[in-house]
């Protein structure tokens, strides 16, 4: 009976959006503002956020972990998800036992607002050449759209979210070197660089780097420049949110909301009439005979299942959950789940000769982007290098506190850096402890380079036979960080050379540089930039078209970085936000054209 009543009401909504991260929130706002009936389904719950963000900040400061999910302590917030403190990421991800794998080290948050809770707000656009990797360098794929197609939408997203950047720098550097023009200035001036940034800039700005790995094609000397990082972080009051005052905790949480997160547009969407159902985990889409999505089935946390329907359905989960839902729905398109990408990270750290004073200001305010494009991309991956403002906190030392102990006390160590290490292993206390900490920790510096990863067909998401706690199949991953040609490995070699060069320019002796070796197992970190898996392109070779519409289901759209055909070196949020706004326009036009009588 209930079934018949529901059928009589189909479709209940104009738009059903799966996922409440930045893509889902932006498109929900745009469509609700246009008076369409919008429902947002979110797998996770709502974090405690009365009294500002006091409860979340409290959870963070009292947690042992200080990990990205630390603010979301408590029942009813996080849906089953990868565990950021599992170094092999096996608690939620499964791995295909029939192939050789390496851990996929990126994870995400499944709660209202998605992973924008814990991003750094770094807001880099892709470069014009990033859209044409196949044509220009013979590798990867070309996007079905160009920088010119997306530029207008980059701008709109920047004004929606509030981005602080340096216009003169963009003209002087990004336009002249990469052709990355802007049609409008940034909404806000840039966040000032830190004192630490200034010391690095003084050492390397304008210097010539000319130390390339042997098989680099056409190596040319590179004049190095430190650039200011554009952020979706307020440098001045913007749309009711305050300017950043440097809590140095963008990840895992901005406690004052100076850094944009998706709740900004979720609140706007709800105020415009959108509905939000939290703790609603979408399990599959049901299709009619024409291939249209007729129902969106979802499971509540008590494991009861129900469905909802919409004229348009939008998957805006992420690069793992989007393909998972399509596979759970029985979709046969072979491209679904394939081309999983991240931005593999290689870090180096060092002890500078003079104090740099880390742990002051946003976690990254300057970077080095001169290696984001060049002929070398035929041979090894482009990369960008962030100058970290939080000392050694994000490398494996976890300074100043410390995370791990040597397996035996008193292990050889020329440069102890953590309180845990000094006290437990070195038996320091009293004056010696104080003076050592005061002398060394202000001199900590970490360089963090993230490189592009080409889209490989065998890097993919499938369905595991193992179930998560809601009895939904877990993601089954097949993942290798590199390929037989060593695209990432060679880039890592170049990165380590560049790190060593930078440290040397800063006057740091070899013994105070801690460089990752070129180990056989290719030690790497994950950026949390989960891309590919529902890529855009031509029908027959991809999942969605240039407007993010499914090739197979006319009323289904897929948003987020899962549609990226290649990964570039840009943090993906700027591009996925631009694509979401572009798709929202397309969807809105379609809804108006096909409004029921």
């Amino acid at each position, binding site marked *: 009976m209930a079934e018949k009543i529901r059928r009589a009401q189909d479709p209940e909504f104009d738009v059903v959006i799966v996922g409440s991260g930045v893509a889902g929130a932006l498109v929900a706002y745009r469509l609700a503002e246009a008076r369409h009936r919008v429902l947002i389904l979110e797998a996770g719950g709502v974090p405690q956020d009365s009294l500002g963000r006091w409860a979340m900040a409290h959870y963070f400061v009292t947690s042992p972990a200080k990990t990205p999910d630390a603010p979301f302590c408590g029942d009813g917030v996080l849906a089953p998800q990868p565990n950021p403190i599992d170094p092999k990421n096996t608690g939620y991800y499964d791995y295909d036992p029939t192939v050789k794998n390496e851990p996929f080290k990126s994870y995400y948050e499944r709660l209202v607002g998605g992973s924008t809770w814990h991003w750094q707000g770094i807001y880099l656009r892709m470069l014009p050449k990033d859209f044409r990797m196949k044509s220009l360098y013979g590798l990867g794929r070309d996007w079905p759209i160009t920088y010119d197609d997306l530029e207008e939408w980059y701008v709109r997203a920047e004004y929606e979210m509030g981005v602080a950047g340096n216009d003169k720098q963009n003209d002087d550097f990004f336009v002249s070197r990469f052709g990355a023009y802007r049609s409008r200035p940034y909404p806000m001036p840039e966040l000032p660089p830190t004192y630490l940034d200034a010391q690095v800039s003084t050492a390397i700005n304008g210097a010539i780097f000319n130390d390339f790995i042997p098989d680099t094609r056409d190596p040319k000397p590179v004049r190095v420049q430190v650039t200011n990082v554009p952020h979706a972080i307020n440098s001045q009051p913007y749309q009711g949110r305050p300017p950043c005052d440097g809590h140095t905790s963008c990840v895992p949480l901005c406690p004052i909301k100076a850094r944009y997160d998706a709740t900004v547009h979720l609140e706007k969407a709800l105020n415009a009439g959108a509905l939000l159902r939290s703790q609603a985990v979408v399990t599959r889409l049901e299709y009619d005979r024409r291939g249209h999505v007729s129902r969106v089935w979802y499971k509540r946390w008590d494991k009861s299942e129900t469905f909802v329907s919409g004229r348009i359905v939008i998957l805006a989960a992420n690069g793992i959950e989007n393909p998972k839902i399509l596979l759970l729905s029985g979709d046969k398109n072979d491209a679904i789940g394939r081309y999983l990408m991240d931005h593999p990270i290689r870090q180096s750290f060092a002890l500078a000769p003079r104090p740099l004073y880390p742990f002051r200001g946003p976690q990254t305010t300057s970077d080095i982007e001169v290696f984001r494009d060049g002929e070398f991309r035929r041979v090894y991956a482009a990369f960008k290098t962030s100058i970290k403002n939080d000392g050694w906190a994000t490398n494996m030392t976890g300074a*100043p506190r410390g995370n791990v102990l040597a397996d035996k006390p008193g292990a050889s160590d020329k440069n102890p850096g953590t309180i845990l290490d000094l006290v437990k292993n070195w038996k320091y206390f009293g004056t010696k402890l104080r003076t050592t900490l005061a002398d060394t920790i202000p001199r900590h510096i970490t360089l963090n380079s993230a490189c592009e990863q080409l889209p490989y067909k065998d890097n993919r998401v499938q369905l595991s036979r193992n179930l998560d*706690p809601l009895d939904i199949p877990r993601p089954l991953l097949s993942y290798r960080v590199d390929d037989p040609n060593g695209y990432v490995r060679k880039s890592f070699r170049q990165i380590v050379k560049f790190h060593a060069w930078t440290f040397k320019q800063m006057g740091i002796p070899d013994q105070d540089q801690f460089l990752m070796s070129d180990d056989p197992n290719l030690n790497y970190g994950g950026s949390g930039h989960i891309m590919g898996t529902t890529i855009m392109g031509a029908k027959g070779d991809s999942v969605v078209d240039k407007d993010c519409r499914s090739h197979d289901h006319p009323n289904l759209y897929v948003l987020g970085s899962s549609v990226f055909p290649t990964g570039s070196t840009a943090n993906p949020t700027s591009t996925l936000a631009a694509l979401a706004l572009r798709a929202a326009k397309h969807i809105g036009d379609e809804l108006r054209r096909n409004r029921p009588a």
Partner: protein
Amino acid sequence: MNEHGIDPATSSDSIDVTRRRFLAQAVTLGVTAVAFPGLAAATTEIWEEGDLQCQPPVAPVRPAYDVNDPALFRTFLRLSESITGIAPLDEHIGHKYLQRFASHPQLTAVLPQLIQAYRAIAPGTTPPPDALVEQRIMQDETLRFGAEQIIFVWYLSAFYLPPPPPKPDPLKPPPPPSGSPPKSVWIYGSPEEYGAGLIWSLIHAHAPMTPGGPPGYWADPPSA
């Protein structure tokens, strides 16, 4: 070998990066207790391994001594100043740390022994030399255990101890079985204490997620 003395192809063997090596080893050791079919051996370099998401629910105990005794507090504070190397310490926070230490089930018993040992080497108000503290407290295994926790709590506002068992979460997979004893984690107290960790003022910074200053303060070096 290039001009910087780094040969990426052989750097793991040719450079004395002892810290890197032992940390990589420690991390690897920490995860190899569980078998992962199909996974190549690897370590991680991002974020923190082996800790917990939420504050462990430590149940306080009633100490077998008067924790409000002013003499006890004075000695606790002077002991703290000796082993942290920082004086004078904040008495208000000191009271809180004494309460936490004395009521912690794994620490309460060692406090009287520490107090007694310290009074024996510092009967007056003059702090004892570090060498004497080393000899009489830090070389004693039991006393050292307590002294380390006092150092940690003053610098970081956290003890470094094995946590009590976590509350089961129906939506999180259970931790993998392990035959080894629970790993120590950082057990924090209140937000007030977190922000007051000595390390932050010592390095001219602030505890992450606490205010650092007016917008843009980070562009200048810290003032003296």
